[in-house]
């Protein structure tokens, strides 16, 4: 008999056997992007939703062309167009409730406008008169974020804070395919999953990060597959099918609200225009590729499905275009007015109270301005 075999002797328990912490299978995305338009299921979709989506898509396309035109007229410093991605933008803008929060990137001004933001305010950053042209609390739209994916942890933190306070709030964060390579994408998804934060992440995979195609960005089976590594479900959806995107995002938002935690949605879409007006897309992609995607245009897809069901006729199409034209005319008129700028605002809101240093510098600028005024 050894010492360990004596009654009452210390016996170390063996370490627990390894087992997976969650079942990975239910988290996996579908093999193909989920589609509704052009399928039998399209017959059951609420006509009111289709009409709403169609009106917003037409308006959204016109918003994009108008904003691009404003860059040529020198009224916008730059415009990253979401032409071709309107289905994602519109669905993201419509799917949230009033108390929810949207976290856009710089290419998502349309989603913010669909959510209710004044287009002039949405474009202020890109016009260059102030970094955020709106109070984020008014429509619960976070400032347009330029450093890629850095807004994603903000969405997680806000949703987490709301949940700690017992508020029913969901955050929807938008990111592009290029942004998924950033460290903040990883950290945000990980925090969200660990905290079961009520967040939905929407990747608009538009094929390019400026000029770099997805193949140079990732070796993952799909971007939606990345969800599995965090322990959250990944959904793959046709990003040009506005109804499908709206439905998938809606399910994810409801899941988050019910305490089910975050979801990662990859919407497969295409940026029909160059990265911005300063980019030359012909250097990195062929006309044939662009044409193939034009044939899969989100507005055409919805229009055809609605005409098939007798929900849209030439008159209704014209009426939607007229409404979009009125929005564009108003935007044009207002963007052609020079913004009123006060250079002394530069020192405001750097801190709650100006430091002595800033007071000195503000005085110096004020004196400069007075001198300029005197010379006139």
């Amino acid at each position, binding site marked *: 008999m050894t010492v360990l075999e004596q009654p009452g002797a210390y016996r170390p328990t063996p370490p627990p056997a390894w087992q997976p912490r969650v079942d990975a299978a239910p988290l996996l995305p579908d093999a193909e992007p989920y589609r509704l338009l052009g399928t039998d299921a399209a017959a059951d979709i609420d006509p009111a939703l289709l009409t709403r989506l169609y009106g917003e898509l037409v308006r959204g396309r016109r918003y994009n062309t108008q904003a691009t035109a404003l860059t040529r007229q020198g009224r916008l410093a730059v415009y990253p167009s979401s032409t071709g991605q309107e289905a994602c933008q519109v669905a993201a803008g419509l799917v949230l409730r009033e108390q929810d929060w949207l976290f856009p990137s710089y290419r998502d001004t349309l989603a913010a406008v669909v959510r209710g933001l004044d287009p002039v305010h949405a474009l202020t950053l890109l016009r260059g008169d102030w970094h955020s042209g709106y109070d*984020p609390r008014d429509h619960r739209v976070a400032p347009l974020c330029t450093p890629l994916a850095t807004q994603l*942890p903000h969405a997680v933190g*806000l949703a987490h*804070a709301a949940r700690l306070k017992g508020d029913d709030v969901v955050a929807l964060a938008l990111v592009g395919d290029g942004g998924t390579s950033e460290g903040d994408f990883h950290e945000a998804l990980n925090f969200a999953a660990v905290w079961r934060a009520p967040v939905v992440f929407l990747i608009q995979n538009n094929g390019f990060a400026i000029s770099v195609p997805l193949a140079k960005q990732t070796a993952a089976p799909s971007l939606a597959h990345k969800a599995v590594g965090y322990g959250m479900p990944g959904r793959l959806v046709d990003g040009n099918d506005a109804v499908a995107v709206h439905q998938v995002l809606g399910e994810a938002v409801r899941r988050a609200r019910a305490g089910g935690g975050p979801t990662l949605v990859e919407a497969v879409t295409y940026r029909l225009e160059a990265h911005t007006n300063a980019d030359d897309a012909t250097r990195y992609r062929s006309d044939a590729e662009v044409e193939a995607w034009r044939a899969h245009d989100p507005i055409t897809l919805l229009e055809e499905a609605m005409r098939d069901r007798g929900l849209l006729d030439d008159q209704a199409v014209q009426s939607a275009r007229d409404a979009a034209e009125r929005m564009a005319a108003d935007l044009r008129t207002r963007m052609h007015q020079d913004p009123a700028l006060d250079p002394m605002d530069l020192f405001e809101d750097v801190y709650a109270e100006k430091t*002595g240093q800033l007071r000195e510098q503000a005085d110096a600028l004020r004196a400069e301005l007075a001198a300029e005024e005197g010379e006139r």
Partner: protein
Amino acid sequence: MTTTAVKPATMAQALGRALRDAMAADPAVHVLGEDVGTLGGVFRITDGLAKEFGDDRCTDTPLAEAGILGTAVGMAMYGLRPVVEMQFDAFAYPSFEQLVSHVSRMRNRTRGALPMPITVRVPYGGGIGGVEHHSDSSEAYYMATPGLHVVAPATVADAYGLLRAAIASDDPVVFLEPKRLYWSKAEWSPDHPEEVAPIGRAVVRRPATGGRTATLISYGPSVPVCLEAAEAASAEGWDLEVVDLRSLVPFDDETVCASVRRTGRAVVVHESTGFGGPGGEIAARITERCFHHLEAPVLRVAGFDIPYPPPMLERHHLPGVDRVLDAVARLQWESEWTEGRAV
């Protein structure tokens, strides 16, 4: 009035007490970071907070500094007052983009709509025998970022008072904790904490009364070094005034310049590298404001312009009493042209 006996307390205890009192006073205050919950932090500053306030108020986060500060931004957007712990100075660097691109700018970007009342606690500086990446003095990076306040206490009372002020501030504060002073002790009662001047005010720790005077300007871990140097210098006939900046941003020009105008000479002392370090800015500010009161160029005693050295060599890098006294000796006490001889 009942008075708790004033017993020696460490800076670490005072910091922990400040966190506890801030959390008790305001339910919006949330502490988050690596190991801050169950363990109480690697320096035990957050010891007991998770137990007292729950995991939702004192949260062990995943090991990701950008994620910690990035989620704190979102929490602040929703009205919370996050206090973030970065485990060590050099481990704060992954969070730098969040700090520079969002924390420091959000108020300005949104015209005051979204202030960022975030405190980023950073145990910083050397002298504890830490291996690589555990001893950086990174204050110059933070100072160079508009929108941040940068604070470093040097005493037990200031550690409490300044941390309470930082948490109460509606602006983001990078709160640099001199880790080699964590275990420094002073008579201090948590029940009757001393009144501490608000963020942005320096203090004269040792006044000069007259004679061969100069001002030593420092903050955080270099303040005790300067005080020791001043004592040693008095034996050699110098009367040195010691200014503890406490806040690097906002910078208290008034207190610093008043002292330099009195003494006519100044030495800035810090562990951070000299080139591009805080001392250059401080020397420039003194020269711009006090030129006609200066009897000698403002000198700097700083860490060498090298990556922070391995622990067995760090004593050669850190500014010590001798190096401070050498600098004082070089403050042109005898003019080579008026006295007719070079020194």
